[in-house]
């Protein structure tokens, strides 16, 4: 047996303790000397002299006392905790069912919360995995773009070059653009499409990341005609080169040209990661190959083609507003010098890289966090209910402990320990769920920014444990209050019928659970309806029976459309013709940016003949009218997609290089360029494009509007150019089958390509329907999660309600027995119990509806095609909740009707 008594308390004030002890000694000694015949004065001096340095000894003793008190307090505390933990474990072991139910409920609540917090932490809170990431910004052209509210788009090559030379606030800036490469098999492996990036040599230095092996790029690498070098990512190094250290200096064939590998980046480095940048730039989730960005003479002239993303590092001490002021200065310079391409209401703007990634999903993630917080609250309410039921059976125990001298504080600490054991067990399971988040994400969701950065870190563990601790203390407080309230009501030994006070408390908890789960259900209902509406949106094309596949022309380090463009156009055109001639194919064509993939390019345009009206002088008299999305098409693209021709004609063999430049535009383009003019009237009108300065483009056809960026985005003016006149190196081909499923045509598409050039391969092969689905991935993710949380909440609330009613029936056995004995019909007893449950439910539903109305306002920006106050959703949810509550009440109510009055009356 160990010590069973607590170490005794000490006199609280060490100073007084020591002083009076020493005074006693000196007084006694003085008296002793006086008895030997000394005068009182002499005796006191003698006593002090024989004692030594009184002050020093007093100080030493006092210090010892202080240390001793500290040691004993600590030991007493440890002793209390150890006892409480042992006692708590024993208590829980005595009711294993209760313990398991409580731990599992908590694990569900805390686990869901921890999982979502892991997500929030990774996507919104953790620093980016680059050096000093707070100083990294993205630099964009800004202004009222073609997409209405969207205000950022890429920078043109000449603007980038000027910006880099003129900026005073940026320590370094590096442009980059998406550039896919086909890595040739070289006889050992299949050719592979790699998601690459052509980047300014300063990219790695700007991010502050050094290559793991070899070197990054030098200015020399970006010279026209310079060496063809590439840096590869860690994954690619492992996958294709087996992690061989001699990979440096090795020659590889990328899109038909020989490159020398000069560097390998460290693991996890994948900048740019597509999901954290605007989708229009086409970046894939991870980039694993980098080549130097080399500008051709022609690109350096094209001030109107905005196709570069740029990341920059602010100079030390420069704030974001200062940087933006500096950029605006440069923008004004552009506007003065090149009014044609850079209007006065355009600007250059820096956005923090972290913000860039977080902004599109912040609201959604915090809403998700809120939703999961409600699930946590509901599971806590359920556990509180379980605890309340259990505490009712423990009044005796606490009364005895108090009678034996336990202070209120000790009893409370004991309760805290017991509950923290429960919640910690729940939290341990919850951390497992948080850890699994990453695995689930890696498998399902490539669309979320910063998925790579989602991990269980110190913050996740700390927040989870803090939540568990807080819940434990709250439960203990609730139980203590309940016991305190009971203390006066009657001692142990009285009959165990619950007083109205406690019944009310438990009903309040359950009503709150019903209300909270109703809020969640309304949110999930609104999101689901919104998702359904979204799927009903007409995309402007018909996706069924269409196969899509990417095709990339070999382009090495010297990207030169002037030299290679004719070849690309010929190749693409003949491939489209071959596809179109296949027996199973109705129509086939290619496009530079497939709708709903996020791939978008924009160009500014001017309407010919409006210079006088708009009064813009000079610069060839070509005023800027606006920005429009553009796509280069090949073959029978519009028919393959099912995009209707509204007026005029589609492209054909007449539209070759050297002939009159032509455009097909969308109906929205006509509305934007010539308000009030019909599609037919727009034919033959001319458009100036910033990109090709020589001659205006003539409109030969008008097609229907297509949702280019997203189903829920506004319709944007669109222009289409023929690939023969606007050379473009990678197109996505679409082939419409004659009624068969999309996949059936794929082997034929592959064979047709091999017949043209056996060294080339299709990539990103998928039915167009899958493309549409993928564009809704984010909404599907949110809707699925919200629906699961709401379902979990409803089940928890139903369990809570069941628990309360069942306990209540058990406690009212006697009363119900009397009623039955006095002639009440089972039917009336059933009604009595049901009414009891439904009153609680009704209160919860009413409060929940009000709460949902308030909460749904936060959801408004996430909804599409459904109002946040959509009555159908509210009514359906209220009915569902009431039905589930009724079912949860019915089971114990039925039990009440089967009571045997004779047995119950003998019971007490």
């Amino acid at each position, binding site marked *: 047996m160990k010590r069973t008594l607590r170490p005794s308390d000490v006199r609280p004030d060490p100073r007084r303790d020591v002083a009076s*002890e020493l005074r*006693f*000694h000196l*007084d006694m000694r003085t008296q002793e000397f006086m008895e030997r015949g000394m005068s009182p004065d002499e005796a006191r001096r003698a006593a002090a002299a024989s*004692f*030594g*340095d009184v002050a020093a*000894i007093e100080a030493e003793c006092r210090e*010892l006392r202080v240390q*001793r008190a500290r040691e004993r307090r600590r030991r007493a505390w440890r002793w209390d905790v150890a006892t409480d933990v042992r006692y708590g474990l024993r208590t829980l072991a005595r009711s294993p069912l209760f313990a398991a139910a409580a731990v599992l409920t908590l694990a569900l609540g805390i686990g869901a919360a921890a999982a979502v917090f892991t997500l929030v932490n990774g996507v919104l809170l953790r620093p980016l995995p680059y050096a000093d990431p707070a100083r990294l910004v993205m630099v964009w052209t800004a202004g009222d773009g073609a997409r209405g509210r969207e205000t950022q788009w890429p920078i043109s090559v000449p603007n980038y070059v000027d910006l880099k030379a003129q900026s005073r606030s940026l320590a370094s800036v590096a442009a980059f653009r998406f550039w896919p490469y086909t890595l040739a098999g070289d006889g050992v492996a299949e050719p592979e499409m790699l998601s690459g990036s052509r980047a300014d040599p300063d990219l790695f230095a700007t991010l502050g990341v050094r290559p793991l092996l070899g070197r990054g790029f030098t200015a020399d690498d970006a010279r026209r005609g310079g060496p063809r070098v590439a840096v590869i990512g860690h994954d690619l190094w492992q996958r294709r080169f087996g992690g061989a250290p001699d990979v440096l200096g090795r020659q590889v064939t990328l899109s038909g040209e020989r490159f020398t590998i000069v560097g390998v980046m460290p693991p996890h480095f994948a900048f740019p990661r597509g999901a954290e940048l605007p989708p229009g730039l086409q970046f894939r989730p991870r980039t694993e190959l980098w080549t130097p960005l080399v500008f051709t003479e022609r690109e350096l002239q094209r001030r109107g083609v905005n196709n570069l993303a740029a990341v920059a590092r602010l100079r030390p001490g420069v704030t974001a507003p200062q940087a933006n002021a500096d950029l605006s200065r440069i923008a004004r310079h552009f506007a003065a010098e090149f009014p044609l391409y850079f209007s006065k209401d355009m600007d250059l703007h820096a956005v923090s890289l972290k913000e860039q990634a977080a902004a599109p999903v912040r609201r959604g993630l915090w809403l998700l966090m809120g939703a999961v917080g409600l699930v946590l609250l509901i599971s806590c309410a359920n556990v509180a209910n379980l605890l309340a039921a259990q505490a009712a059976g423990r009044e005796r125990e606490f009364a005895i402990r108090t009678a034996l001298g336990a202070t209120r504080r000790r009893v409370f600490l004991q309760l805290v320990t017991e509950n923290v054991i429960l919640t910690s067990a729940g939290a341990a399971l919850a951390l497992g769920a948080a850890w699994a988040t990453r695995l689930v994400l890696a498998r399902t969701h490539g669309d979320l920014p910063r998925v790579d950065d989602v991990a269980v870190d110190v913050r996740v563990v700390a927040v989870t444990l803090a939540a568990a601790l807080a819940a434990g203390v709250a439960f203990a407080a609730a139980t203590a209050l309940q016991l305190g309230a009971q203390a006066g009501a009657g001692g142990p030994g009285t009959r165990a019928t619950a007083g109205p006070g406690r019944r009310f408390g438990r009903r309040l908890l359950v009503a709150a659970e019903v209300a909270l789960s109703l809020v969640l259900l309304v949110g999930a209902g609104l999101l689901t309806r919104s998702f359904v509406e979204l799927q009903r949106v007409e995309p402007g094309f018909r996706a069924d029976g269409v196969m899509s596949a990417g095709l990339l022309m070999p382009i090495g380090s010297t990207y030169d459309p002037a030299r290679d463009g004719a070849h690309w156009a010929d190749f693409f055109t003949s491939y489209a013709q071959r596809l179109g001639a296949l027996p199973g194919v109705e129509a086939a064509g290619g496009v530079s940016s497939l709708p709903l993939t996020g791939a978008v390019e924009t160009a500014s345009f001017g309407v010919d003949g409006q210079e006088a009206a708009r009064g813009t002088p000079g610069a060839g008299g070509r005023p800027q009218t606006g920005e429009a999305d553009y796509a280069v098409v090949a073959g029978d693209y519009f028919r393959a997609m099912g995009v209707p021709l509204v007026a005029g004609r589609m492209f054909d063999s007449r539209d070759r290089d050297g002939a009159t430049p032509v455009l097909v535009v969308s109906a929205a383009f006509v509305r934007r360029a010539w308000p009030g003019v019909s599609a037919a009237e727009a034919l033959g009108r001319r458009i100036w494009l910033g990109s090709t300065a020589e001659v205006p483009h003539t409109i030969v056809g008008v097609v229907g509007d297509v949702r280019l960026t997203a189903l829920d985005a506004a319709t944007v003016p669109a222009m289409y150019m023929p690939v023969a006149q606007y050379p473009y190196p990678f197109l996505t081909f679409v082939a419409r089958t004659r009624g068969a499923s999309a996949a059936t045509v794929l082997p034929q598409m592959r064979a047709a390509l091999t017949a043209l050039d056996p060294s080339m391969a299709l990539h990103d092969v998928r039915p167009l329907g899958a493309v549409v689905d993928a564009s809704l991935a984010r909404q599907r993710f949110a809707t699925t999660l919200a629906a699961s949380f709401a379902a979990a909440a409803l089940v928890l609330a139903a369990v809570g309600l069941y628990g309360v009613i069942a306990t209540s029936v058990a406690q009212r056995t006697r009363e119900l027995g009397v009623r039955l004995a006095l002639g009440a019909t089972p039917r009336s007893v059933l009604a009595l119990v049901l009414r009891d449950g439904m009153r609680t439910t009704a209160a919860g539903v009413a409060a929940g509806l009000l709460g949902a109305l308030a909460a749904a306002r936060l959801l408004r920006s996430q909804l599409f095609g459904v109002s946040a106050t959509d009555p159908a959703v509210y009514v359906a949810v209220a009915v569902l909740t009431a039905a589930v509550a009724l079912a949860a009440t019915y089971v114990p109510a039925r039990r009440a009707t089967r009571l045997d009055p004779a047995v119950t009356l003998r019971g007490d």
Partner: protein
Amino acid sequence: MASDLFVGTLDILVLKAVSWGPRHGYAVGRWIRETTEDVLSVHEGVLYPALHRLERRELLAEEWSVTETGREAKFYSLTPAGRAHLNAEVARWRRFSHAVSTALAATGA
């Protein structure tokens, strides 16, 4: 060093002083003075840090109580651990002093 010897020795003497029952510091000091013929009397103040240290190690227990003359004083008594410690220390001291005495009594190498 003499002072080191004294610290260790003092602890044994203090424990011995309270081995017949609770005593306050003054009584402990007087017992040591009388039984050791005033060897310690020069600075009897050192007694108190020793008492506190022993109490902190839980070899002594303390209690405020009233003396025969009606004054409040702090009484120290031996805990079970203190008694065991005293016995062990006394045995050790005997062995030590016997060894030293034997050595000092030796007459040649």
